[in-house]
């Protein structure tokens, strides 16, 4: 079964997946019109910044067993049998946030949603774009990702690919990094900028102490 696989080293932090996610969970399904909807649709995928400000697309892992599901006393959270997708029934959610406290990844949000009951906040998270997939499309975040940080494939296939890349990088004459030079350069510069900032802070702190 295909699923969304995250390749963090490829994320350039453009946040396109967030826009695409919010749009595909809107009523109008078009970016511009979606920004004019009330309530406003919100993304289910969240790009966070790493220690070196590198992007990281954070989304629901659809864990099994799912801590959120175990924590949901209202019984709103369930698993779709054929796809394994963990879903929230908006009509049963009591907005208690137990699921959020249980979630190890911080990918559940609470707000009024165009696809939920009117005038009432509910827990919202990634639904694996179930309705898009049912229509033969791939998840919106994957479709929009231009750097290959998000792919839609069999997990085993993704792991085989990664295994091959790791193995090749272990060869003695292999280039040290499979990363394109420009991307690597930018990462290095960003890291050193940040290191300068933090070491400056440290030395300041040291002086004060």
């Amino acid at each position, binding site marked *: 079964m295909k699923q969304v696989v995250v390749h963090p080293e490829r994320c350039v932090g453009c*946040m*396109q997946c967030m*826009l695409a996610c*919010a749009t595909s969970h809107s009523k109008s399904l078009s970016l*511009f019109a979606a*920004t*004019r909807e009330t309530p*406003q649709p*919100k993304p289910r995928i969240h790009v966070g910044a790493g220690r070196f400000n590198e992007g990281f697309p954070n989304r629901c892992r659809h864990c099994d067993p799912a801590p959120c599901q175990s924590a949901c006393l209202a019984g709103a959270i369930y698993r779709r049998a054929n796809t394994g997708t963990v879903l929230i029934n908006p009509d049963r959610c009591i907005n208690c946030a137990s699921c959020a406290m249980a979630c190890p990844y911080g990918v559940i949000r609470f707000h009024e949603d165009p696809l939920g009951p009117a005038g009432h906040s509910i827990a919202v998270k990634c639904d694996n774009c179930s309705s898009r997939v049912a229509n033969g499309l791939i998840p919106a975040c994957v479709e929009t990702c231009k750097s290959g940080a998000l792919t839609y494939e069999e997990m085993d296939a993704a792991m085989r690919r990664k295994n091959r890349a790791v193995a090749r990088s272990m060869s003695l004459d292999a280039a040290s990094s499979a990363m394109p030079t420009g991307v690597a350069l930018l990462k290095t510069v960003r890291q050193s900028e940040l290191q300068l900032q933090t070491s400056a802070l440290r030395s300041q702190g040291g002086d004060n102490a």
Partner: protein
Amino acid sequence: MLDQNKELTVTQDGSRLYEKAKMDGIETVWERHEAQQPQCGFCDMGLSCRICIMGPCRVDPFGEGPQAGVCGADADIIVARNLCRMVAAGAASHSDHGRDLVEVLAGVADGTAIGYQIRDEEKLKRVAQEYGLAIDGKSTLGLAGELAQAMMEDYGMRQKAIKLVSRAPEKRRAIWEKFNLTPRGIDRETSEMMHRTHMGVDNNWQTLLLQAMRNALSDGWGGSMIATEVSDILFGVPTPRPTTVNAGVLKKDQVNIVVHGHNPVVSEMVSKACLTEDLVALAKKKGAEGINLVGVCCTGNELLMRRGIAMAGNHLMTELILSTGAVDMMIVDYQCIMPSVGKVAGCYHTKMISTSDKAQFPHMEHKEFHPDNAEQKAVEVVREAVENFANRGDVLVPVAPQKAVGGFSVETIIGALGGTPEPLVEAIKAGKIRGAVGIVGCNNPKIKHDYGHVTLTRKLIENDILVVDTGCVSVANAKAGFKLPEAADMAGPGLQEICNALGIPPVLHMGSCVDNVRILVLVSALANALGVDISDLPVAGSAPEWYSEKAVTIGTYFVASGVTTHLGPMPPITGSMNVVSLLTDGLKDVVGATFAVQPDPEKAAHFLRQTIEEKRKALGLDVRTVG
């Protein structure tokens, strides 16, 4: 990769050549457009900013993420700054094209522009008078030199207003004065626009957009207008002449040379070289029947307007024309030349020559043309093209050429009316012609090739609206057969009657994209004849398939001049509803005209007809209900 059921073009030559290109393994603009999908939503909404490197920044339109750039600029400021920079780039492009012509004019005066000459002395005198120059007792070359100097002043900062704004109706000029929109210098306004959009300068989105209008006006009534007027002086005022259009203008048995780009400075010399007797003889010796010069894009329009030279296609046809395998050489100058064409040509025997010191391209041979060597360089490259004829492989010329008439300068139109705009005014007053729409601009793979142009034009002439066109639109409309006097049959009864009486087509080809200024001059003449402002006239503008920064500038100087203008594709402004509502509504209270966006040409026709009927009503003329 492309959806097989998706029709990319309404043109027959386009779809056949696309099939050929696909078979030949050529990647075209459509595949690259597909590969870019989905395109960046932040950029599409104007919400990304790369102006400084505290950024790059973007504002989240859904309100979850950042709502301001690092500097603190909110969505309104970021959207406005981005749009302003598009206007500045467009104005810079057209006005720099104008600058090159002024340099040739100066070169003719001092004898350094070899092979160029003053072809229209009358126009030289007319324009010189408008610049306040005394013409009596001066030699032609002396006057040309003085005019070139005066035009150079227009580019600078030594005057309060550029000279040719004097052509605008008095009421229009008063509006510009009132809102501080009168352009002072051509380069000055572009420079100021770039200055104001630097981080930490103008952060009022309204005043930014006002400067964008002044910047656009500095092009419309300045740089572009100079480009057109000097081209007329150097190469002649266009007059109607028969021509042919579409890929069928390429000849299997002749050396085919295609000029691509914008400035007549190069293409005029190439056209002269193609007539050289020994080169024609050489072509015959090589087994060709002769040398066939054709154009794509606006430098082709320049030649078509003045020499009746055929047009092979518009923007989205430029790659496909090469896939005929029939092009022995393509000579380019600048603007709208996709960097891909050199690679496409690599699949055939076609030689690619770049000519401008400011524009180089991958997989092209660079042979720089300057005013002092252009005549000789042109002969050199045409000779190479002739030599290349022998290297041709298989050729596909997919259709027979379509006949058309082009060359409608303002001088010609007024001339055809008997020396005064009065008969046109009368026809509008009587309601036979409801009004006029200038359809201008580009192609864009976001819209089915030429569908927007042809559909809109057909709907408008059917409803008795006279259409004038320029640039890529003019090629689309000529291919659709709208540019023959017989096409009057496609027009509504009133327009048909007028066209038949004057022997003109219902769609008039007014030139290249700098020649949009001819439309400004024409509407000014109409407004003056009626004693009203341009914004009172039953006229409108439209760019159904626009893509370029130049088009943003043209649209902006149309609107700032009082012409309500429709755009097919949405400009990148939807990130700020304040900017959207100012441009589509609020500007009415400033300049008496607005923008409207509508990708569907049928609906756009409806909107434009309504706009025209509303203007008629305000003028006290008869009104039709637009169903």
